[in-house]
């Protein structure tokens, strides 16, 4: 039962209780996911979190150990890859080296015996502005061009669901940005459902309508990019999507609208609406760019949380902003990103400073305790090495 018809529109995808075990480890444990039709959905996570496996399950290149996969309401769990209305843009592009570009793009159409495959293939190549290279071989094209051919080869089939497996990973930064915009434009033009897998949080946030952050085979949090960034639910999300300053403590008091958390040397106020838990041991946090530096202790007020004094450990200038690392006794390191607008205090390494932020910028996590920092401080080479090794091990396991 090959798919003989073009999909009218993107279809929705539903994963129900998906589990995938490989010999020796579990890649995905109990995953439920619903992606609405026509949306641009990003699965974001570190390598080895199970995101690529999820994609391969949807494409039919792997079989789930348990659970069901529904595309457009139809159960496709038992069907094979070539019977699913799904196409993939592979990480390595996987263009057929023995065929010309136009033959590559027409491959899917010919297999489905759709009329005028070459005409349609040329149209798809025009969409990615590569029609003039139709007669060339893939190895004669640059990385960015190959990536666009891979995209044309997939969308020419008008799949109900397009899967993108880190297709921009091999491109340099400038080309990446350009391709991100192009992908987004094409998605809006053709109205297909895109499922994009990536470990690049910036890419996920700029392109997707909805982002799901995956960790250890499960989804930690799902929502619009702004929502995830503004109000992370877990320590993992808080640190994977951007960076965060996290403080663990006990709830010491509560009003109608806010809780007060005792984190040792300071009392931090977090609005109830922005805290996932309202009693017991909690972890609260704030984004580094919301924190400001002061050379003198700011006046205590109900609108502002103050932590300090601490000492500046490191100052690194990155053009638009400056990144400060402040060591506060009893808290550890606090990260501060200050815009270089020329208005803030000028502080150097070793100076004594106070940090503060508006109460409405803080957030309370759902996790009990702070997990180990996923992003090691930049100055610690040993922890970077350890992280690299963990990534590599995870990647090997996934592969």
């Amino acid at each position, binding site marked *: 039962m090959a798919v003989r018809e073009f999909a009218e529109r993107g279809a929705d995808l539903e994963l129900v209780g998906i589990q995938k075990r490989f010999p020796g480890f579990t890649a995905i444990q109990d995953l439920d996911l619903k992606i609405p039709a026509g949306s641009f959905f990003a699965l974001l996570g570190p390598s080895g979190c199970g995101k690529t496996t999820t994609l391969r399950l949807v494409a039919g*290149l792997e079989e789930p150990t348990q659970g069901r996969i529904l595309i457009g309401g139809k159960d496709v769990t038992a069907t094979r890859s070539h019977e699913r209305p799904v196409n993939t843009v592979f990480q390595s592009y996987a263009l057929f080296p023995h065929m010309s570009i136009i033959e590559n793009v027409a491959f899917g159409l010919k297999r489905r015996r759709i009329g005028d495959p070459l005409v349609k293939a040329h149209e798809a190549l025009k969409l990615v502005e590569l029609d003039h290279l139709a007669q060339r071989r893939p190895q004669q094209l640059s990385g960015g061009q190959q990536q666009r051919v891979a995209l044309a080869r997939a969308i020419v089939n008008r799949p109900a669901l397009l899967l993108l497996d880190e297709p921009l990973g091999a491109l340099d930064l400038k080309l990446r940005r350009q391709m991100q915009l192009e992908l987004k434009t094409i998605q809006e033009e053709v109205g297909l459902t895109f499922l994009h897998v990536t470990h690049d949080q910036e890419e996920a946030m700029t392109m997707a309508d909805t982002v799901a952050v995956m960790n250890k085979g499960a989804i930690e949090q799902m929502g619009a990019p702004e929502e995830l960034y503004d109000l992370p639910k877990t320590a993992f999300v808080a640190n994977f999507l951007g960076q965060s300053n996290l403080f663990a403590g006990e709830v010491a008091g509560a009003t109608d609208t806010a809780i007060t958390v005792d984190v040792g040397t300071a009392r931090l106020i977090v609005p109830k609406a922005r805290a996932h838990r309202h009693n017991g041991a909690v972890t609260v946090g704030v984004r580094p760019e919301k924190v400001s530096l002061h050379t003198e202790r700011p006046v205590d007020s109900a609108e502002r949380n103050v932590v300090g004094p601490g000492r500046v450990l490191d100052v690194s200038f990155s053009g638009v902003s400056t990144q400060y690392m402040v060591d506060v006794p009893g808290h550890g390191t606090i990260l501060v990103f200050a815009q270089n607008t020329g208005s803030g205090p000028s502080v150097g390494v070793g100076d004594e400073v106070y940090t503060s932020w508006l109460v409405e910028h803080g957030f309370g996590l759902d996790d009990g305790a702070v997990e180990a920092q996923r992003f090691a401080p930049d100055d610690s080479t040993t922890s970077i090495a350890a992280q690299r090794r963990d990534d590599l091990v995870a990647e090997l396991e996934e592969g």
Partner: protein
Amino acid sequence: MSGEVQAAAVLGGLAESEQTESGRRPTGPVRPRRVGLGSWLLPAYTVIAFVFLLIPIAYTFVFSFNDSVKSNIAWRGFTFDKWLNVCNVEGGAVCEAFANSVIIGVVSTIIATTLGTMIAIALVRYRFRARSVISLLLFLPMATPEVVLGAGLAAQFLAVGVPKDMTTIILAHTMFCISFVVVTVKARVSSLDPALEEAGRDLYGSPAQVFWRVTFPLLTPGIVAAALLSFALSFDDFIITNFNSGSVSTFPKYVYISASRGIPAEANVIASAVFLFALVLVIGAQVSRAARVKRLAKLG
């Protein structure tokens, strides 16, 4: 003698120039320039090696034009007779042997290449019980001395009571060719990106379509190389053939037997023809390859 003197002069001159140079740049030790031995010994050695390799081929080719009577050792004058009447001596024994060799080579190559390719794909792609044992066993025919293989096989045919003829030779050749095919094709299969086949499946290709339109074309260079190797091995095999051929004559067997009483010039003719044919094939392949590269470059 004069060469040596010249070399010495050159060496001396170089040494002098080094000295003046080091005089100008006093800092840092001067590395003595390596001149002399390598610049003439390597070319000389190369020429000698090639002469040694090519003389027998040249001899065979030249003596295919010899107007010989019985033995083909002394030069007795130039003639095209042997080339024109190659099948007319000894009732066409040379040609019959040659034809047998070609038939055996082609049939065993087809069987060995087909089976070997299938085995190679299975060994790389699937994890099954006894996979590593099979890999090892496939290496054995390559490692075993041919005499042992030939004699062993002959004993088996005798024990089962199979009469020795073309079929037994083909069986024997297929057996040892499979190993070489598996090794050659396996290398190609392992270097194949599995994502390409996945892309084929993803683009609505049924398993058969993916094999014939993606996997097979990508494996073709390896399969062709394996087939050529297989044919070459089969065509010039003497030892195993001799044990399992009975009264059937093959070209190597014919040459070996007639060597004792002087190889007829017709054998030289066939050997030269095969050599020239192979040469034309290789040159043709190179030329068409170069033309394709040029064409692609023009496009690009």
